[in-house]
């Protein structure tokens, strides 16, 4: 009963990280408007399987916009045209009959293509391992209500913590910079009292690890537009400020990390 669309797809196919890739064209016919974008790809894969062509590999998991596994470049926009929406939550009603849709993987030096639309985002994990945690062994914590955290601070930390680690910010950035991701991870912990002891060490190590893999921010703001969780650019500013302080602070006498 819902309207259907006929679309022309241009999809990036690449056998392996080293192999050269190229675009393949597919026709997607009778696509229901109520389908999600990834369900549309499922349908294509089903057809490919019938034709004896290897299905298109793409990353996806929860399909409810929270796990951060999915993500492709749709017509030159990370996660497609709808704001604050992951690829899996994008629905075909956002497209019109006859559209040509170009689908590509995230492209960045820090995100090598694994196969087709799948990229390797392990550099994000490496950044978190550089300090994106609070060192508290299990069982060592005091009663949760001993620590008062102003609601505003807690909310600001939560806004940063909403990051799903999908990599759209890097994909959308003309410099392939990971500032939005890294700043969200850093500031989530820097904004709350628990995170103060390691604040400067964390900031320094995470920023420098980020720069091992990703480019530099030129404040275009594309990352924020692409971000499915609408993480604010403010966190980048906070991170920049904290990074300078991390270099200047007399940490021994300031008593922090």
């Amino acid at each position, binding site marked *: 009963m819902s309207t259907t669309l006929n679309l022309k797809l241009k999809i990036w196919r690449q056998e392996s990280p080293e192999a050269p890739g190229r675009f393949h064209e597919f026709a997607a016919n009778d696509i229901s408007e109520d389908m*999600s974008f990834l369900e549309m790809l499922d349908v294509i894969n089903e057809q490919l399987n019938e034709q004896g*062509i290897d299905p298109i590999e793409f990353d996806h998991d929860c399909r409810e916009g929270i796990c951060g596994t999915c993500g492709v470049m749709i017509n030159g926009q990370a996660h497609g045209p709808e704001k604050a929406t992951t690829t899996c939550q994008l629905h075909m009603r956002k497209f019109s009959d006859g559209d040509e849709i170009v689908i590509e993987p995230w492209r960045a030096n820090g995100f090598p293509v694994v196969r087709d639309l799948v990229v390797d985002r392990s550099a994000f994990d490496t950044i978190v391992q550089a300090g994106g945690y609070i060192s508290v062994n299990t069982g060592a914590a005091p009663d949760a209500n001993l620590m008062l955290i102003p609601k505003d601070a807690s909310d600001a930390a939560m806004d940063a913590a909403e990051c799903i680690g999908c990599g759209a910010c890097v994909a959308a950035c003309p410099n392939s910079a990971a500032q939005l991701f890294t700043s969200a991870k850093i500031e989530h912990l820097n904004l709350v009292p628990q995170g103060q002891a390691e604040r400067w060490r964390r900031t320094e190590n995470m920023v420098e690890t980020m720069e091992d893999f990703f480019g530099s921010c030129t404040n275009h703001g594309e990352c924020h537009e692409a971000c499915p969780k609408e993480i604010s650019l403010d966190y980048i500013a906070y991170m920049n400020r904290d990074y300078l302080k991390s270099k200047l602070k007399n940490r021994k006498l300031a008593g922090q990390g």
Partner: protein
Amino acid sequence: MTFDSAVPPGDIASMWDDHKFNTKLVNPNNKRRFEIIVVGSGLAGASAAATLSELGYKVKCFTFHDSPRRAHSIAAQGGINAAKNYKNDGDSVHRLFYDTVKGGDYRSREANVHRLAEVSVDIIDQCAAQGVPFAREYGGLLDNRSFGGAQVSRTFYARGQTGQQLLIGAYQALSRQIAEGSVEMHTRKEMLDVVVKDGRARGIVTRDLITGETEAHTAHSVVLATGGYGNVYYLSTNAMACNVTAAWRAHKRGAYFANPCYTQIHPTCIPASDEFQSKLTLMSESLRNDGRIWVPRDRDEARSAAQIPEEDRDYYLERKYPAFGNLVPRDVASRNAKTVVDEGKGVGPLKNGVYLDFAQAIGRDGVETIKEKYGNLFDMYERITGENPYESPMRIYPATHYTMGGLWVDYNLQTSIPGCYALGEANFSDHGANRLGASALMQGLADGYFVLPYTIGADLGDRLGEPLVPTDDEAFTSSIDEVKTQTQAWLDVNGTKSVDYFHRELGKLVWDYVGMERTKTGLEKALSEIPALREEFEKDVRVLGSGDNLNSSLEKVGRVADFFELGELMARDALEREESCGGHFRAEHQTDDGEAQRDDENFAHVAAWEWNGKGQVQTRHKEELVFDNVALTQRSYK
């Protein structure tokens, strides 16, 4: 194989403390001589891997995701229970224990549940210290809300993303250990076999999903934290990759599989829109705190929701259960939704849902308050359906969400294979026949942070100096050969239909016969139709590509094969359990007003199934449940 619940003697209130005292300790210097494999990096897996490594064990952690932050624990929206009694509303460890046993319809093991309630308070402390941004009041203290089935406010939450925040907390703790070099993290590797030698788990065999390589990993203990099996229904709220494979392969190596028929149907999901639907999206149950559920009285109602006057609406939960109203437990809410939809009163284009209406709450509290509480859920709903829930009521329908059944474990969380443990949703232990809202996160973290790290010592304490079984041992090589042969066999079938096709067909069978309401005839049908479909699957599935690079069809085909065997076992378990309890509702066993009718005399036990080989019927073992601390009552939410 052992089958002893290992519940320590004594009073339940001091049992866990006594048990910790009586359990052998492993000297800190000796801990590093033990290697432990953790499969899965969700809440239970990541927290266990982090904690074990903090204690000094050498840990290897495996996930088939690209990062340990992706597991489906991340999707839990509502919250996590803890008996903190911060609201001073009469909560206590005993009350949480009591509610959980009662909510589980008296089919869980008292000792485990009591321990869960005890450690729940530590979880909140731990997570808050890790920086999890729980919701707070203006005074800076933690906020709580009440959650489906509970009459106290004991649920801690972080907006609508509690699971995500808790998982990130555990992921960060794990990342810290990875950076220290004390956890070796393996991403994109799927466990395909547990290696058992001389009656003990000795390691696992994995397939590298990128290179296709089959690898052996040896260890002193193997911990499975691999989630639930809800995807057997094809359409469920589980993530696409959720599967039973790790647990099932352990089952095939001797671990008993307990209560597979206990599956939970979540009452508040977005109804399917068409046949291509790949999964169903859950809307947090917390919505039921403020939303009112109704359907039109007339099955031919053609007006839009807003135009239907009060007198033509049937708020059926409020009508039937005046005390609990819209907050009745999940199974009750789900079954009632099915009843009204089956009566033809469903709403929406496919008439496959019921209304969840916020008009009254918005009128009472204002749009801003509602937005603060549920904003992201409302946005999500609008993205998926294209309808604005601030203006017209949501449409919801039940969908499979959680599976209470799983690998049988004893009090120490050890499966019936010594040295092999199961945590979180992968085990059967704490929720009985039905899980209360906000208890899954609690159980996953309890197992991983606070239970397993102690109880694993009971086994390891005696094994100091025991050498690891080398990976070139026959036990490993034969398992690797089996895995390789099976992988190649799938590629060689070269049939005509896709893996997804068979998964969908299987899902329909399981949903129809082993879904919300089960009957003897239906289950018998399932037992004949599932094997028939499986045979077709084995002959006619088509998996393209090769085994030496990323190939998601190849990953899926093995998982679906396990679902076939599991689906059959679910039907068998449901058939044998001649009663209704919690998530298992047998139409033959209901009270006059349609409530689940338990049979405590004959079925107050855990059914633990033992694998007897492919094509053989599993053996059903019983673990009798003893209730010394809770009086069995018939649930009534009237």
